[in-house]
């Protein structure tokens, strides 16, 4: 099969993944509801609890992007769950490998499908946060989606890697919970690096190397920065590295 014709299959494979997401529209609605509870209940309340004297002018706005990135992580991890289910529950791996697409194209398409699903699941959330940040009617709104997309790319790669090596769904779910805890609580989602430096200096290396830290910091920069490329650039290399890892794991995992 020529390279051009195999590349034509990419949108079809991505479309299949999107259709799987929408096979239960209720699930998409629930993801947005979770985001709304995170933002309009938890974030608003903590926003009232934490005064500007802490050095954070508006704590609500500070943690608002985190609600959206948590939703993105949940949606991205769904890709790994689907890949695991295809092999162990639905027995679909052989069928997928019989598709007229070279395996690297199939693997890359699955990752692209996961990113597309995550962007769809977070689409309204990104709009809401962009509005709160005053960048909704500004070209920076595209940068907002780019940041969410890059973050999702890394997490989709990571989730497929975990799915490739998890022997049972319980192992997958437990590792996913651990990663989500790391992303949420050992990042600058809720507090600044300075807070970690003062209260728990041993955790600073973990916080500084956390993809959630890079993503939320890049998003926060959108409010003030005129040159948005440097904060986004920080995300590119690690996201591509995680995506490559996911692709390699998918190829290893789907070998017959």
């Amino acid at each position: 099969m020529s390279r051009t014709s195999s590349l034509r299959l990419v949108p079809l494979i991505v479309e299949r993944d999107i259709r799987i997401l929408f096979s239960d529209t209720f699930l998409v609605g629930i993801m947005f509801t979770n985001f709304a509870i995170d933002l309009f209940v938890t974030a608003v309340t903590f926003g009232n609890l934490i005064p500007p004297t802490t050095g954070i002018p508006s704590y609500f706005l500070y943690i608002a992007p985190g609600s959206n990135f948590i939703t993105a992580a949940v949606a991205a991890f769904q890709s790994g769950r689907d890949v695991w289910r295809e092999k162990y529950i639905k027995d679909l791996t052989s069928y997928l490998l019989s598709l007229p697409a070279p395996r690297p194209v199939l693997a890359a398409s699955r990752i692209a499908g996961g990113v597309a699903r995550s962007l769809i699941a977070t689409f309204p959330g990104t709009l809401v946060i962009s509005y709160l940040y005053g960048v909704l009617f500004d070209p920076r709104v595209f940068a907002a989606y780019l940041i969410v997309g890059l973050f999702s790319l890394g997490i989709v790669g990571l989730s497929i890697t975990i799915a490739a090596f998890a022997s049972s769904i319980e192992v997958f779910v437990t590792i996913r919970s651990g990663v989500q805890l790391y992303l949420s609580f050992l990042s600058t989602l809720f507090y600044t690096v300075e807070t970690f430096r003062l209260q728990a200096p041993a955790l600073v290396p973990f916080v500084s190397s956390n993809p959630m830290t890079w993503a939320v910091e890049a998003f926060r920069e959108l409010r003030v920065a005129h040159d948005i490329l440097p904060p986004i650039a920080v995300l590119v290399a690690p996201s591509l590295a995680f995506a490559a890892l996911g692709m390699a794991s998918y190829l290893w995992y789907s070998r017959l």
Partner: protein
Amino acid sequence: MSSSGIRASVSSEPSLAETGLVGGVFQIALRDIATLFRTPWIIISRSLAFVIQLFVFATLISKLVVLPSFFQYYAIGSVVGTIASISFIIGYDIFEEAEEGVLDYLLTLPVTRRQFIIGRALGGAVRAMIYIIPMFAIVAVLERFANPLTLAAAILDLFLLAFGITGLSITVAVSVRSANRFDVVLALLELAVSRASTALYPIAFMPSYVAAIAPFSPVSLAADSARAALTSVSLDITGLAGLIAFVVVFLGLGAAFYFRKLEGGVYA
């Protein structure tokens, strides 16, 4: 989470019918307790979540919030939130049993339907208590809660909450048919009763649309009552009465729905 491995332990009890009402309930409850401990992954992930929330999130965030003793407030609330979360698991078990056909086997056991239903609810609550006690002990040691009476009152609050949530979870498990929807409905319910409550933050700081409903959340009732017992050494009669009402309503509803499904519903 239902496991065929449990069958041996239950079916190896030939005296089940002879042990009377209490014995039958006890055996069914014992099976549910064994089921939780047969799946250590759930215990590991939720324990890890509790530890990180308490020792990282609560420690750091309490330096930022305006309340002087927020760590203590959050620590008690996180125990209450965790027990609510664990108590929801019984619903997943019941749903899976129906899907996998284990329920048919369970119905052949020599116990009455009433014993079976009460046993399931009791098992769900007791295993949540067993799970939460080490976490409660950590908080008690950290915050130096040493009065046996107040500790007992707080444990009673936790048990009532666990019992009521178990009933609520059973009600949802037997009311929703689609597996995907069941997963998300239960997850959303869990999130809603925990977040729209006073478990993790005081009502005075909530937005008005949440503050209006938060006092009625069973998690709020348990959290406020446990805090009153542990920190003010007082008995929150309103909270306790609310919790008892919650238990009666949802245990009754759960039992009624479960009974109806068993006797000619979708699981028949």
